[in-house]
């Protein structure tokens, strides 16, 4: 019995199956290596940015994550608060095919966050594992179907056991899974890194059926985001069904503490090109680190069934260089803790209308109730 493990090498079936198992194991081991060459080059080099001027500022931001780039501070200082507010914001034009789905594409969207790029590499390796296993099973099936069809093999064997073989096809898959588990656990720990203390905090709140984005560290103003009515997105150069009136505007290149919650039922904040999805649950505050490597427009959609217009509450994240983002925050009437409040109210700055552009358009939900202004008593 001590050599039972190797008994399978004495039969032809055993040897063939063992050979196949070996090929399978090798293919799985080699697959990720082969895959590495298929992966697109690093995204920064891969395509042109949405706005080349933004690149410089982001590059600066990227070198010092967590801290605001010095040049940006200088630029702001020279223009002055009110002027920065008024000059600030026109919604960025999305780059076709970037941060959005593309028809007929077979793979995940291109990734723009550090964890997203790591996850994408792991994803490619996993796809190879899936392909190799499926092809091996298909090949084995086709082989036995041809080789052991009744005409070719009229007398069936009576083999019903092969301990070695059974041990092999238990152990080898277990080893493959263990090999998968290591990068998987590593990815998880990266995704769960805590945002640094000075990270920009943004709270996404799901409502039936629109999103609200509030900035608790910047005066807690809230931007209400409704889907653009049919045709309007196309007029603005955005993908139909994905464009919104007011976007979630964030700084690029710095860590963001994204919090998600909901006001009524469960929603989910999801942006595929950032490998980011977190449920917005009423009564809970889910928090996750979000890093966007470069300025751009990134589209997502609500990803938890939340009632009738579940399919009509898209998410648009617009990542701006830090200086422009600060200008945008001021334009919304927001403040910064490291700055004195502006001397005069920024009346020149265009404050965004928190309601949908078209009140009864699809996706135009009720805006949150404003604090009631006392009406003069009629008596």
């Amino acid at each position: 019995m001590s050599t039972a493990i190797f008994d399978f090498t004495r039969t032809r079936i055993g040897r063939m199956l063992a050979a196949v198992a070996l090929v399978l194991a090798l293919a799985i081991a080699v697959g990720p290596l082969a895959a590495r060459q298929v992966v697109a080059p690093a995204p920064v080099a891969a395509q042109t940015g949405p706005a080349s001027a933004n690149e410089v500022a982001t590059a600066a931001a990227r070198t010092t994550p967590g801290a605001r780039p010095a040049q940006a501070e200088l630029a702001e200082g020279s223009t002055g608060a009110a002027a920065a507010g008024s000059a600030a914001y026109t919604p960025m034009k999305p780059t076709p095919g970037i941060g959005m789905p593309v028809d007929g594409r077979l793979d995940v969207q291109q990734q723009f966050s550090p964890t997203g790029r790591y996850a994408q590499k792991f994803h490619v390796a996993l796809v190879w594992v899936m392909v190799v296993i499926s092809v091996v099973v298909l090949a084995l099936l086709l082989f036995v179907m041809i080789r052991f069809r009744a005409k070719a093999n009229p007398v069936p064997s009576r083999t019903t056991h092969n301990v070695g073989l059974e041990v092999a096809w238990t152990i080898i898959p277990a080893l493959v899974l263990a090999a998968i588990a290591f990068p998987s656990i590593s990815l998880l720990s990266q995704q769960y890194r805590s945002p640094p203390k000075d990270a920009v905090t943004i709270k996404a709140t799901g409502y039936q059926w629109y999103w609200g984005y509030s900035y608790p560290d910047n005066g807690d103003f809230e931007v209400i985001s409704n889907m653009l009515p049919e045709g309007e997105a196309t007029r603005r150069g955005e993908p139909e069904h994905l464009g919104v009136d007011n976007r979630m505007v964030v700084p690029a290149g710095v860590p963001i503490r994204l919090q998600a919650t909901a006001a009524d039922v469960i929603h989910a904040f999801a942006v595929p090109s950032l490998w980011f999805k977190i449920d917005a649950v009423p009564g809970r505050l889910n928090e996750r680190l979000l890093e966007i490597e470069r300025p751009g427009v990134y589209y997502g959609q609500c990803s938890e069934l939340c009632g009738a217009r579940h399919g009509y509450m898209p998410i648009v994240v617009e990542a701006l260089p830090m200086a422009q983002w600060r200008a945008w925050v001021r334009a919304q009437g927001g403040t910064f803790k490291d700055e004195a409040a502006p001397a005069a109210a920024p009346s020149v700055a265009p404050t965004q209308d928190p309601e949908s552009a078209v009140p009864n358009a699809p996706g135009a939900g009720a805006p949150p109730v404003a604090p009631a202004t006392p009406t003069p008593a009629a008596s």
Partner: protein
Amino acid sequence: MATTADTFQAHQEHGRAHHDADHKPGFFARWFMSTNHKDIGTLYLIFAITAGIVGGAISGIMRAELAAPGIQYLGWWVQLMGGEANFDANLHMWNVLITAHGLIMVFFMVMPAMIGGFGNWFVPLMIGAPDMAFPRMNNISFWLTVAGFTSLMLSTFVPGGTGQGAGIGWTAYAPLSTSGSTGPAVDFAIFSLHLAGAGSILGAINFITTIFNMRAPGMTLHKMPLFVWSMLVTAFLLLLALPVLAAAITMLITDRNFGTTFFDAGGGGDPILYQHLFWFFGHPEVYIMILPGFGMVSQIVATFSRKPVFGYLGMAYAMVAIGVVGFVVWAHHMYTVGLDVNTKMYFTAATMVIAVPTGVKIFSWIATMWGGSIEFKSPMVWAIGMIFLFTVGGVTGVYLANGGIDDVVHDTYFVVAHFHYVLSMGAVFSLFAAFYYWFPKMSGRMHSELLSHLHFWVFFVGVNLIFFPMHFLGLQGMPRRYPDYTPAYTEFNHLATVGYMIMAASMAIFFVNVLYALLAGKKAPDNPWGPGATTLEWTLSSPPPYHQFETLPVIEDNKAAHDREHGRPSHA
């Protein structure tokens, strides 16, 4: 060491000897008050086919709507159901359709067909028992399932919030299913699950008792056919999982109607608690739907390879392992709810472990065919199709098991593609394999092999065309449960709708085949499948007598059979 247990040497005289027990009651008593496992099995199969037609037609409406961006047909369906079409009511209709499709296919098609239908028919026959242990309980199991289906159908005609019917998804997540949906529709839908669940629990008790107590003399647990093993494990999963669902949805009912706040954070409850309870049931539920299919495929592959199942004990205990581990992986359905990182790591690792016993089964089926003398009769082509397509669904399952990867595909069409590969192909292919395998035994008529093969190939092309492109849609980010989408998802959605039409055509072939067999099919012999079919049901007539095995068959162990063949006394 007689563990090649799929082969029995039953005394032939026992099978056929009792045609005098063939007295049948009148029509009403026979079909409405039935206590006969074969009649109840037939009722379950007819019910499952009926529900399958409804659930399949609903998916047809869904595929038609999704063929192109925009809302095309939903308003028409709202009006047809007696509602008033407007934007929100139309979208609500979509949610009603996805909810009904999911609940019908899970609770009223796959489960009744596998457990109620084939389980009832063949567990007693395969273990040499005259009937189920509790025949009357068997009857009420069936009628509770029918009542559940009726309640679900009623729910579509009453208000459910934004429109008529329950638009909460088959998972019925709170608070959408509590404060998020006013009106009685959701209560009807929940009550439907109570009824179907109660029916299934009673059925599970019946199967466990039958299998433990009513095996013919000599049939030890390690000699039971693998289909019986699969039903035993399934019954235990039902018994342990369904009460948790019953508790969870009862809490939904009280949250909705009696002011409790189990799932309302405003009252100290937690919406995530519902998800934990639901998936503690829901994950074993997916094994409940596929394990009987594993059993069926094992019988069929062995029969048509003319070989005993390879690694019988490994096969049996792989199912037990899948059942046990299936209870500790539930939160992989909840990777994005905000789990703790350690929790997510645990569920990632635990989920991947299930691939090991599943792999054992796939390899053992192939090893059973290896060295066999394979005949490609209709059940065999469906079984081989199941092995391959289930593998494809299985590897995407390993992919999804990774909690970090899941962030991009969670609640997208990738998940839809994955679970349709394991269920709509894994479970449904094994159902069709089982149907063609046992139809001659049940009806006494042979179906057309030509039509069965044609059905297979058209269905195979159709379902792959529906579901394979969904992987790509999901990777590109298309969320589930969307009636409308950005134009960038058009191409693959269109392809999937074309696939649906092909699949629907194949179902026409299936029904023609069944009609042909019933009306003009050749008379089926006791054993139409040759020497590979060694289980006890093939020793009986086709169809079997109304009551069988009034004198129990005796299962000899292999040594006794060997001794008898060589002229030595088998009993000392």
